C-alpha cells in the first residue's frame, strides 16, 4: 500500500440479514484529496461511511483508514478522523465556547491547546460576539460552519462529512466549501457525501454508488466526458436510472 493512500478499501461488504447494503466496494483515497461520495438515498453511502469511521463492523472485505485496519484497530481510527453528521450535531444548550471545550476535551486535547484553538477558531468564524451565546441561538449556517471547525479541532488526518450542507443557503454553502478547500490545502483528506450535484463538481474525484455498488469513480471532468454530458447532474441521472 502506498503511503499516499489514507483510505484503502477492497471488496468491503455489509449485509443486514439477506439484504446486501454495501456490495464489495473497492476504492482508494489519496492524502489531501477531496473525495465525493455520491449516491441516491438508500444506495448505501451512509452504511459504507459508518464502516470507515469505525462504528459499524463490515461483514467482509478489507478496509484501512488512516493507516489502521477497521476490523482490528477501530479505536485508533477514531483518534485520527473527524466526523460531521448530516444532522447538525453540536449541543444547542451549550455556548460556542463550551461546545469547543467539550469536544476538544473528549479528543484528549489539553486545556492550553483548547484555549489556543478556540481563540483561533472563533476569530476565523467571526464569532467573537457570539462566543458566549448558546449555540441554539445561532443561525443554521453558522452552526454548520462551527460544527465543521469542531470536527477539525484535533487535526484529524481525514474528515468525514455526511451531507454537511443540507438545508443551507447557497452563500453559506459556498463559504462552507471554501472551508473545505482550506482544510484540504492544509493536508487534511476530505471524504464528503452530498446530494447536491453542483457540489460534486468541486470534488477532486467522485464515486457514484448505485444499489450498494460503486458504478463510477473518476474526476468530475472525466466522468462528464465519459457520459457525454455537461453536468454532474446528468452523469448521476444516467447512472441511477441505469
Amino acid at each position, binding site marked *: 500500500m502506498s503511503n499516499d493512500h489514507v483510505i484503502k478499501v477492497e471488496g468491503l461488504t455489509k449485509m443486514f440479514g439477506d439484504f446486501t447494503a454495501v456490495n464489495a466496494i473497492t476504492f482508494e483515497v489519496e492524502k489531501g484529496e477531496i473525495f465525493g461520495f455520491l449516491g441516491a438515498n438508500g444506495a448505501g453511502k451512509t452504511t459504507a461511511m459508518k464502516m470507515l469511521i469505525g*462504528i*459499524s*463492523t463490515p461483514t467482509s472485505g478489507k478496509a484501512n483508514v488512516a493507516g489502521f485496519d477497521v476490523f482490528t484497530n477501530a479505536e485508533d481510527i*477514531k483518534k485520527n478522523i473527524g466526523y460531521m453528521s448530516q444532522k447538525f450535531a453540536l449541543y444547542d444548550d451549550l455556548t460556542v465556547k463550551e461546545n469547543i471545550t*467539550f469536544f476538544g476535551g473528549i479528543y484528549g486535547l489539553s486545556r492550553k491547546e483548547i484555549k489556543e484553538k478556540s481563540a483561533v477558531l472563533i476569530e476565523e468564524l467571526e464569532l467573537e460576539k457570539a462566543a458566549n451565546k448558546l449555540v441554539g441561538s445561532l443561525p443554521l449556517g453558522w452552526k454548520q460552519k462551527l460544527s465543521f471547525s469542531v470536527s477539525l479541532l484535533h487535526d484529524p488526518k481525514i474528515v468525514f462529512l455526511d451531507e454537511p450542507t443540507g438545508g443551507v443557503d447557497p452563500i453559506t454553502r459556498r463559504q462552507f466549501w471554501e472551508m473545505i478547500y482550506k482544510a484540504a490545502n492544509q493536508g487534511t483528506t476530505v471524504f464528503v457525501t452530498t446530494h447536491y450535484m453542483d457540489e460534486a463538481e468541486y470534488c477532486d474525484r467522485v464515486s457514484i454508488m448505485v444499489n450498494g455498488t460503486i458504478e463510477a469513480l473518476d474526476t468530475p471532468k472525466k466522468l462528464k466526458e465519459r457520459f457525454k454530458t455537461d453536468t454532474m447532474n446528468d452523469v448521476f441521472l444516467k447512472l441511477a436510472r441505469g
Partner: protein
Amino acid sequence: MKRFIGFIKKEYYHIFRDKRSLFILFGMPIAQIMLFGFAITNEINNVDIAILDHSKDVDTKEIIHKISASKYFSIDQLIEKESDIETIFKKGKVKAVLNFEKDFGKNLIKDGEATIQIITDATDPNTANTISNYVNAILAQYQKELNKDVTIAYQITPRTRMVYNPELKSVYMFVPGVMTIILMLVSAMMTSISITREKELGTMEILLVSPLKPFQVIVGKVFPYIFLSIINAVVIVLLSIFIFKMPVQGSLFLLALESILFIISALALGILISTISATQQTAMMISLMGLMLPVILLSGFIFPISSMPLPLQLISNIIPAKWFIIIIKGIMLKGVGFQFIWKETLILVGMTVFFIGLSVKKYKIRLE
C-alpha cells in the same frame, strides 16, 4: 479521567439549563412528599356527622357527648326524621348519621340491649369503614363503663397494639413509597430521556465516532444522575424526619447503601429503555407506563400485595421497587439490621446485575 470530568460538566450544563428537568429533579420530590404527607391520608379528623336521636335520654346524650368530644368527629347537625338522612347525604358534607332507636335508654335497662344504626356514606369505602370502626370503639368504651360494677364471668378483651407506627400515621407508609417513586423517576426516566435525546439530536453518533468508548459515554451520562438521586434521597429523608417527625430507627448508613443499590438498578433500567427507544417521547412513555405504574400499583406502596390475586402477586416479585420498599420500611420503621433484609438485598443485586448485563448486550447490538 480528564475526558470524563469534561463529560460530566457537559451533563450538568444540560440539566441545569433545562427548567423542565430541574423541576422534575428537585421540585417534584418535595411536592410529592408534601402531597402524600399532608393531603393524601387514611386517617380521619373532624369528620362531619349528623345525629338522629329518637330517644333523647340520658344514655343517648352521654354517647353523643363522647362522640363530639373525640377529635375524630364533629357534629354538624341534629336531624329529626328519617327522610332527612337521604337529603343530607346528598349534600355531601355529612359522612355519617347515627340513628338512635326510640326508647334507647329504656331498652338498654329493661332488655339489656339497645340498637343504634350507623349509616355511612360509602362513596368513599375506606373512610366509611374507618368511621364505623371509630364509632364502634366509642360505643364499646361506653358499654364498658356501664358494666363497671357487674362482673361478667367470661370475657375476652382484645388489646390491640400497633407496633412500628403506633399512631397509624399514613405518612409513615408513604415516605418509603414516595422515595421509591422519586428515585425510580429520576434515575430511570431522566437517564433514558437524556440518552435518547443525544440519539435524537445526532450527538450520540458524534460521541461514538470519538475516541470515547461506548461504556465511557454511558457512565458519563449516568453518573450525574446517581449524584442527583442521592441528593434527592437525602432531601426526602430530611423532610420526613423534620416535617413529618418520622423516626428513622435503623442505620442511616445501611439506608444509604441500599438506596444507592436501588438507584443503580433503576439507572440500568433507564439505559435499557434508552436502547430500545428511538425518541425522547418513546422513552418517556415506556418509563411512565412500564416503570411508574407498576411501581405505584404493584409494589405494595399503596395496595397491599397480600390482598392481590395470585397472578398479580407473582408479577409483583419481578418489580425491583417491591423489594426496595420492604428494605427501607424495615430500616426506617422497624430499625432492622442487614441480617433481616439480606435476602431482599440479594434479589435487588441480582436484578441490577441482570439489567446491566441486558442493557450492555442491547447497547452492543444497537451499535451494529
